[in-house]
């Protein structure tokens, strides 16, 4: 299978934010899948069937790769309808690679790497929030007595 075809599949499933979100120092545009290091292995047997099916529906690998983004999306929607489980398995594999990619995590304002040992800072309830509990206390017993 040609690289251009495989890359086109990846970037249709995971197009990224082509226009970009409203830029802030913390928010970068999501990259397309292929720019985040997501690759399809043409030798991975479990995916060959659905990839061949995509190419067939498009009229060939080259036709898929050359098609517009919206046309490629339409084709994948068609494949999803006709071959749901294999297509979703392909999507699942790509999604797992993509949303663990450091560039994607950083674009989402997140931290790359393991959850531990750093953990995260989470603020305690502030004084205003704790004052709201006084209102709850003042209501008195809410539980239903049982004789």
């Amino acid at each position, binding site marked *: 299978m040609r690289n251009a075809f495989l890359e086109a599949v990846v970037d249709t499933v995971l197009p990224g934010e082509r226009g970009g979100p409203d830029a802030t120092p913390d928010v970068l545009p999501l990259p397309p899948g292929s720019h985040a290091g997501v690759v399809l292995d043409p030798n991975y047997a479990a995916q060959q069937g659905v990839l061949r099916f995509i190419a067939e529906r498009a009229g060939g690998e080259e036709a898929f790769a050359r098609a517009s983004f919206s046309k490629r999306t339409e084709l*994948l929607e068609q494949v999803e309808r006709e071959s749901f489980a294999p297509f979703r398995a392909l999507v699942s594999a790509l999604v797992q690679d993509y949303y663990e990619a450091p560039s994607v995590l950083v674009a989402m304002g997140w931290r790359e790497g393991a959850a*531990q040992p750093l953990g995260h800072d989470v603020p305690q309830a502030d004084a205003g929030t704790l004052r709201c509990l006084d209102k709850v206390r003042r209501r008195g017993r809410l539980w239903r007595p049982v004789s």
Partner: protein
Amino acid sequence: MRLDPVDIAIVGAGFGGAAFAWRLSQQRPDLRIVCVERGGYSDRSALPALRPDWQRAVLNEWATSPNLRLKSGRKPASADYPIDDTQSDFKPLMWNGVGGSTIAWAAHFPRLHPSDFRTRSLDGVGDDWPFSYADLEPYYDLNDAECGVSGLAGDPAYPPKPDRAMPPVALGRMGMAAARGFDALGWHWWPVDAAINSRSHAGRAACNHCGPCLIGCATGAKSSTDLTYWPKALENGVELRTGCVVQQVEIEAGRARGIRYWDEIGREVFQPAQIVVVAGNGIGTPRLLLASGVKSPALGKNLMFHGAAYARGLFREELDGPVGPVGCAIYSHEFYETDESRGFKRGVHLQVTRENALLVQASRLDRPWGETAQRWLRDEFRHSVAVLVCNEDLPETHNRVTLTDEVGADGLPGVKVEYRVSEHTRRALDFGLDRAEEMLRAAGAHRTVRIALAPLTGWHLLGTARMGTDPATSVTDASGRVHAVGNLMVADGSLFPTVGAVNPGSTIGALALKLADDLARRVE
């Protein structure tokens, strides 16, 4: 191989088995107690949270469903067996190993309400428990002390509880946003009781809010019975045998003789015992008892999960949903007790939970690919508040656990779960979702979304070997003794005649402690 007899043989080292073993060994040090567990210990130094690819573990070898773990192609640390759940609206979730599902739980630790023990008398639905909240209360207190609870005393939704050992787990911006919503409506809310250390306690570290509690707790801040009850039980002399799959409770002339199991190297072993105690959860327990030929019209029936649905609010402000203990922020019992004007009896629990990790959020979208999915994720991630709506699921005999004709790889008959959401549950969930959306809007959400049913919430496996007084409608008596086999007991969530609308862990532990005391007084 036939072993020397023991006094007590416990099957299953989860919450029920662990609490029972510890308490009985404390009260009766003269007894020889053995616990046999199909899984092993979780290796905290090898948990996924210590690796950069931890998120995908949530979807694979640490998925909440044993079926998903088995399908993942990666070797799970949990000693799983497949469950036919094709005819179940909720998918059964569990962890099989020392600590049971406390290894992978959220450690949300509410108690039942006093009214939950009297649903038949008060509301004409379900059944009364054979004892009251007041009877169980000292064991709730003891269980809290042993597990270590963070929280805040003084909640008017409950009878007074002792001071919590630690202050509440940090609410975070997400929890404070939800509190704002409840407060604006004048509704009850309170910080959750959590079996998680908010500061160093009992030799375990304070939680550092890493997030993924459901893939095991690498720091040990989260209470799980491999860290709490088991070390003390072992110190008391209880013997814990891991990697041993019990095939049968051998029963002869209405008496249990002991347990037959495959040990960790595949040998068949017979362990004679004066009393056998099964604590394999609401699926594992009926599976073993049915496979052992226990006869009871109620065995395997009346499976209850808790109805579960979600409402999610999207906020413009940046929140911190994906970090911190997943089950922890605040809850509301404004609608917990019966109000018949709502069109259903009993009530709902509204729990503000934390959000999923990025990959998990992406994977659970209806269509997780394409521009729309990525746009949605951008709007949602770090900008949402989730409210879990749980209702009181009522016992219905057609919701059940049965054996299949197949034999599993573990040597036991296969197991099937049949469960359908009732009209009662649907009405209660819809009511709860309406209230959750109302709260989210009051808190400032610019958009709300309903997930009308959350199938992957089936942690609460309850009711399939229920307690009661009538052998026609219950499997055991109030002390967990199987009616038909006097020296065979159950000590887990299977015993619940009804389930309230809250998570059962706290009650499973308290109940096991009470049953252990009952037995300690009774046994020769």
